[in-house]
């Protein structure tokens, strides 16, 4: 890569090439990445504070900021243009950066530069040297064995009177940065896929014994076989359970019981237990006995204006252009007669029937049904069969889930490999130019300002010392953080 750029510089780039090159380099730059991540962080912070009382405090403290604070509360940061834009930029940057770095990292792993210079070793933060009373070949063998014991790969090359050595370990972990960074993109993709192709139904109701279609093109339908609950002594619900049967295109595919926090999943669709309520099993036929409706109707979703506390439900019969309001007895006896004008008994159900067609008037027919007794009203026969219950589920489908799982593993695994298997590198020169049969060895790690790397290097040197029975001189520079540019001649008093 480096060579390619060098060749290119020999020619004059066209303006377009220059621009492309500029943009490419902008996206490759870690410095730009820092700024981009910082901008993202600031936006996240603004969005976070919006959900808090902090802006209010600011407005209270500095009245002049009132207007800005109001705008702040009004701004949905996480769905705003700037937020999407910075996510897009980061995605491009990660992609470009990956493409740009891959060849270099591959070369570091597979064909690293072996030759080094004395200057590099001299200027390293820490280095070691020794005189070994053995010829270079056997010194190199001992050196190699020692490093291999410490899991280093050792590569060497003859350079005149010297052998140059490059040793490294954990080189494959260098690749871990790719799965990690790509995982960040995958999470975004998962989010987009989830938002675009997923759905969330907060009030999916199935009365006991009934089947309901999930819709949204899933081909799924669910039957509530049974609903059961258990109570604590104080009258609060301890838990409740729905026994569900799932059908895909009419075929049973799954059977499971769900409770709060124990949902049922099929493919990317998940059913969560949320709540439950009362329902009425109703049967409606026409005068010839053809069934128009036979199902449980959930009550308590609607509220009747005449009887506000009584559980109410609605049945629509599109074929007959009719709509039925179904109202159950008010459970609170104290409401009668003021709020509870119907004053139904248990086992009764009140229905109002109204036409829904274009020429339907406002007139309504009503009746009080008694459980198990079919009754003719307005040309149909309505029967309240029995009370049942419905379960209230939340249905969410997120096709992003598998992507999200994959991303999670790549992300954590990538970080783990990057952090706990650091790439350690050592360069050495074994020199035979002095007395015959004697090796001058000098070595240093590539560990600038890297305390751990230097510590690891000292361990390697100690090991060598033992193995070669030779004393090594370790040279350390004082802290490079504290090195200041040389001051002008001090004005001593």
């Amino acid at each position: 890569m480096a060579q390619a750029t060098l060749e290119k510089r020999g020619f004059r780039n066209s303006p377009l090439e220059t621009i492309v090159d500029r943009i490419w380099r902008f996206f490759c730059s870690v410095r730009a990445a820092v700024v981009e991540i910082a901008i993202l962080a600031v936006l996240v912070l603004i969005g976070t504070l919006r959900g808090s009382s902090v802006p209010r405090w600011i407005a209270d403290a500095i009245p002049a900021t009132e207007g800005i604070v109001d705008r702040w509360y009004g701004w949905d940061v996480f769905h705003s243009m700037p937020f999407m834009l910075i996510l897009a930029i980061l995605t491009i940057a990660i992609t470009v950066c990956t493409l740009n770095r891959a060849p270099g990292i591959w070369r570091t792993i597979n064909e690293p530069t072996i030759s080094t210079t004395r200057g590099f070793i001299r200027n390293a933060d820490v280095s070691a040297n020794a005189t070994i009373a053995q010829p270079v070949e056997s010194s190199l063998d001992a050196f190699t064995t020692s490093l291999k014991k410490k899991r280093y790969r050792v590569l060497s090359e003859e350079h005149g009177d010297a052998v140059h050595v490059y040793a490294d370990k954990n080189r494959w972990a260098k690749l871990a940065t790719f799965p990690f960074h790509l995982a960040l993109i995958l999470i975004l993709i998962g989010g987009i896929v989830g938002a675009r192709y997923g759905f969330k139904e907060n009030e999916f109701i199935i009365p006991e014994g009934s089947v309901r279609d999930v819709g949204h093109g899933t081909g799924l339908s669910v039957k509530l076989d049974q609903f059961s609950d258990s109570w604590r002594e104080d009258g609060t619900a301890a838990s409740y359970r729905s026994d569900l049967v799932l059908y895909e295109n009419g075929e049973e595919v799954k059977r499971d019981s769900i409770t709060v926090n124990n949902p049922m999943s099929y493919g990317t669709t998940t059913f969560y237990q949320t709540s439950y309520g009362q329902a009425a099993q109703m049967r409606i036929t026409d005068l010839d006995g053809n069934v128009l409706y036979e199902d449980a109707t959930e009550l308590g979703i609607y509220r009747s204006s005449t009887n506000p506390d009584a559980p109410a439900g609605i049945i629509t019969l599109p074929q007959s252009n009719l709509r039925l309001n179904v109202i159950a007895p008010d459970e609170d006896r104290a409401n009668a007669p003021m709020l509870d004008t119907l004053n139904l008994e248990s086992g009764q159900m009140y229905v109002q029937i109204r036409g829904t067609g274009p020429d339907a008037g406002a007139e309504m027919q009503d009746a009080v049904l008694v459980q198990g007794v079919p009754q003719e009203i307005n040309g149909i026969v309505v029967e309240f069969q029995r009370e049942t219950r419905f379960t209230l589920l939340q249905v969410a489908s997120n096709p992003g889930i598998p992507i999200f799982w994959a991303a999670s593993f790549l992300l954590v695994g990538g970080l783990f490999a990057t952090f706990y298997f650091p790439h350690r590198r050592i360069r050495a020169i074994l020199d035979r130019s002095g007395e015959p049969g004697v090796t001058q060895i000098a070595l240093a790690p590539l560990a600038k300002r890297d305390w751990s790397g230097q510590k690891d290097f000292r361990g390697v040197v100690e090991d060598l010392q033992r193995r070669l029975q030779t004393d090594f001189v370790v040279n350390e520079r004082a802290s490079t953080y504290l090195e200041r540019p040389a001051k002008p001649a001090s004005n001593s008093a």
Partner: protein
Amino acid sequence: MEGMVRLSFYLFAAASIAVAAAWVCYMVYAVGFIRLRRTALATSTGMTVTGSSTEHVPGPMSAARFGSLFGWFAAVFAGLSVLTRAIASHRGPYSNMYEFSLAFVFVLTLAYMLFERFYNVRQLGAIVMTIALGMCLYLWSLPPRMREVDALNPALQNRPLMTLHVSAAIVAYATFAVSFAAAILFLIQLRKNVSWLPSAEMLDDIGFRAVTIGFPMLALVLILGSIWAHQAWGAYWSWDPKETAALFTWLVYGVYLHTRSLRGWRGQRSAIILLIGFVAVGFTYYGNYFFGGMHAYGGVN
């Protein structure tokens, strides 16, 4: 209070005392003596100029050793307190701020003691134990009813996920506290070149190592949290303020990790980002106090 819960409370009291004792010892060690040095300088014109400079002499090493001893006591007592409470409540430390903070004191002291052992430096103790002491005082300031073990809101009943989610958060925050302490000493070291402090390189390394634990842990918090949210609320990510606060914190440490590969940034500016990161941690930790949203249950609202 039931017996086990009471025992847990007494162990917490013991841990608080140990933290306070460790704090005093580390402080004595760190503050040491400030010696005033007066110097008389003769100038070339024959006048004499007197100048004074302060010199910092560390406190006795024995104080630091006692600090470590009390630090271990604190970790053990706090650990036992968390354990006995978990036995009594049959769950992880996530029902309210009392349990969460108690577990934090445990992991913070433990993480610090392990770092202290690994690097064989005791100078960070003064800062870390100040944080631990602050947490203990906060715990004592919480309403005593929180020390009881209550039945849990059904929405929080997914034990393994909740325990992992919260434990990862505690480990992340504790290690970030260690990196914060290292960053402070690093900044002091850059300016003053204090010989008794660890080298700048080592302090930088401590800060980085702590983040290499905290950063993946916080990633895990976000992931486990969203998996749990998926199960409890049917939504992976709802842009809930406590979620986004954790994301913000994670991004700050992401910036930190990148600055380490920028030559001009590594060092001072990286250390400053560690300080910002820890402010973000505090903000996320106490977020319950000023956020509404789904995490508002922590017992403080």
